[in-house]
């Protein structure tokens, strides 16, 4: 059985007994790592995690670790944190969500030269087609699209559950799962758009916001500050909950059962994990057609939110200080319109939309799709002699 030496830890996590890093996106990358890990194990690999792949350079090191021909190194972490495992084929996961990569040297520190870094990989595993098109557009040729398998949330017991359990509160509920790091992104379109839709809708609307990646005592002030930054006095109908980590299947199903639609107003996406999980659980989706969301969900499978391209502020992405970066931000009015469009859908129509999305995602991020992708990956590496 070949071994995949997998590196996922970053910065202080690589210290002996080190604490979890506060690097933005940590929750998301951890989730991605676990999904890839499960996928490769199912595909017949043994996973061995290494915190510092770059230190095992000598033949003696590889011997001590039991490295064999046919083993690979998989790095699942933000680009700037990737380190190589010399002597093994290096597979770097790329989940970049913006339409441009940083490239070139000065004044960029070496690990901020994203295109240069990706060109050092034996193969870049892009989590979605959008990311691959961006990466290839910057001259990185050794790429494939290989998202991790993202299974449909399974109920904790295997009792027959032909239908999702239904919410009990009257009206319609839109569920929005945000990474706490994403609070540096504009929140106004979501809240103002929801408030406007709530005022105009013929039925009561609720917005369920689940904030992941922060314990409640940390996340509360973050949320309050983000809401204050929108300049909105008060938004009724918003119900907030927190989770330190991505929620497990049982909790996810309970959360999904409370909602009628999943809502994503994200202006940029790599692999949209919350959207995928919700859609695979059968929840109809209202989303901005950006990045990985657009490439994974065909038109007609979800209610799109119209966006406009604007510059990314440095507060949301530090790399914006070095290069022009844009994203596709929805206006509040576009969010309102999409919510009202969703609210007007007949239940069977929403169900057909949800089923189509679930089917598309099963084909793109199901276990079979991953197994097929791994075969492509093997052929690619054997062709290049890595």
């Amino acid at each position, binding site marked *: 059985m070949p071994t995949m030496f997998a590196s996922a830890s970053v910065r*202080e996590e690589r210290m002996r007994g080190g604490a979890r890093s506060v690097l933005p996106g940590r929750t998301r990358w951890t989730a991605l790592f676990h999904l890839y890990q499960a996928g490769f194990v199912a595909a017949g690999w043994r996973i061995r995690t290494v915190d*510092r792949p770059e230190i095992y350079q000598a033949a003696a090191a590889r011997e001590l670790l039991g490295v064999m021909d046919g083993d690979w190194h998989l790095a699942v972490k933000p680009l700037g944190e990737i380190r190589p495992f010399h002597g093994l084929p290096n597979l770097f996961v790329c989940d970049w969500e913006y339409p441009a990569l940083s490239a070139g040297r000065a004044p960029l520190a*070496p690990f901020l030269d994203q295109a240069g870094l990706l060109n050092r990989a034996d193969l870049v595993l892009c989590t979605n087609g959008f990311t691959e098109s961006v990466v290839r557009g910057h001259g990185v040729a050794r790429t494939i699209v290989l998202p991790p398998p993202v299974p449909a949330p399974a109920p904790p017991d295997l009792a027959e559950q032909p239908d999702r359990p239904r919410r009990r509160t009257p009206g319609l509920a839109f569920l929005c799962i945000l990474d706490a790091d994403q609070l540096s992104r504009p929140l106004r379109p979501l809240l103002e758009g929801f408030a406007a839709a709530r005022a105009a809708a013929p039925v009561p609307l609720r917005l369920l916001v689940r904030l992941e990646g922060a314990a409640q005592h940390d996340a509360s002030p973050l949320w309050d500050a983000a809401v204050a930054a929108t300049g909105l006095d008060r938004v009724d109908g918003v119900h907030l909950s927190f989770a330190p980590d991505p929620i497990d299947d049982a909790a996810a199903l309970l959360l999904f059962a409370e909602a009628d639609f999943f809502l994503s107003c994200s202006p940029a996406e790599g692999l949209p994990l919350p959207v995928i999980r919700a859609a695979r659980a059968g929840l109809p989706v209202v989303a901005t057609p950006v990045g990985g969301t657009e490439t994974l969900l065909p038109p007609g499978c979800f209610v799109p939110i119209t966006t406009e391209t604007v510059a990314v502020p440095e507060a949301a992405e530090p790399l914006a200080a070095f290069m022009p970066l844009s994203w596709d931000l929805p206006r509040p009015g576009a969010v309102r319109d999409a919510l009202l469009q969703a609210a007007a859908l007949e239940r069977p129509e929403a169900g057909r939309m949800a089923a189509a999305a679930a089917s598309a995602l099963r084909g793109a991020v199901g276990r079979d799709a991953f197994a097929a992708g791994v075969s492509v990956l093997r052929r690619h590496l054997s062709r290049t002699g890595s």
Partner: protein
Amino acid sequence: MTAGSRASLYVDIGPLRETFYTGIPNVIAEICQRLLQEGWLDLYFDLDGKWIDRADVAACLEARSGAGLGTDAGRFRPAAEIRTALAASGALDDTVALYTDHRPPRKLFRREGKLVYDLSMILAPECHPATSVVMYTSDLDQQIACSDVLFPISQSTARDLEWVYGVEPGRIRVALLGNNVDLTLSNRMRALIADRPVEPFLLVLGSIEPRKNAALVLEWLAQQPDVLDSVRVVFAGRQAWGDTFETMVDRFGLRGALDAGRIVFTGFVDERLKAALLVGAVAMLYPSMFEGFGLPLLEAMAVGTPVLSSVSTSMPEVVGGCGYYFDPESVSSLHAAFRRLWADRASGALQALTERAKQRANGFSYDHTYRVIIEGLFPGTSPPG
């Protein structure tokens, strides 16, 4: 330069400012010692912006200390006058430069070489104080880009240079460090302790800082307390940064062992005490997470002390097949290495290994280091002598 002609060499000797020459200052001292013997070179030494003349450099090398440079510092001319003097003599355009420390991020001389010790600040910044990382790395890419030739001190550092900065192999000359262990000193120490009963001890040599990874050893001792029945474990090195030794001892529940003297922390040790500890130890344990070379390993090998070595980065280039390797991330790997050493000690196989290690250590020479540097600075020429 043509055969038989003279050449001008500007040398940044920053590391020689240190009061005690160990580690990198010791390396630069070895290089400067050889430079001073070259009759064909006109040497211009720059230390922290001061133009140091040959006699003062020679005095530092003799004393193995840069303490003298700090006294009456006003007697030195500004290093900026070096260029003026070279220009006046018509030699500026042909002058070659060797940087042994942080260098300017722009090219100043015809051909320039830079020593590169390791890229741990770039590859493992979490192992260093944040301020040091910023200071060291802010313009490192430019320093590297404007150097005509780079002298990494190991193949491992060379590999990192290629990977991180995309340096073409043609610009890299690996200048492995040499062995200048003073065997007179170690023999004297060995003679001093020869007839005295010395309880077996493992020597963990290195400052207390995250990169040196003393925590791995403490965690091992916490998990395998029986080890302390067989050996004492002596940590020798200054408290640098990060968790204090005492804090780590408490974290791993080893306060009792420390109080009982089964674990010893000496703090900084001078060269004589280090020599005594090295020759007296059952083995030297070097758990470092990241090295550019690994001089303490070479020192132990040279005096015939077995080494338990981290398998990380450059260390296998030093130890070769003459030590007991472990993964610096793994307590069980360290324990397995210790058991192998202990078994070989019991069987007598250790003796042959340490003899081989001594021979290997003798193969590392600063003459070779120096030759690589000179040939890199003056390519395609045969310097006189």
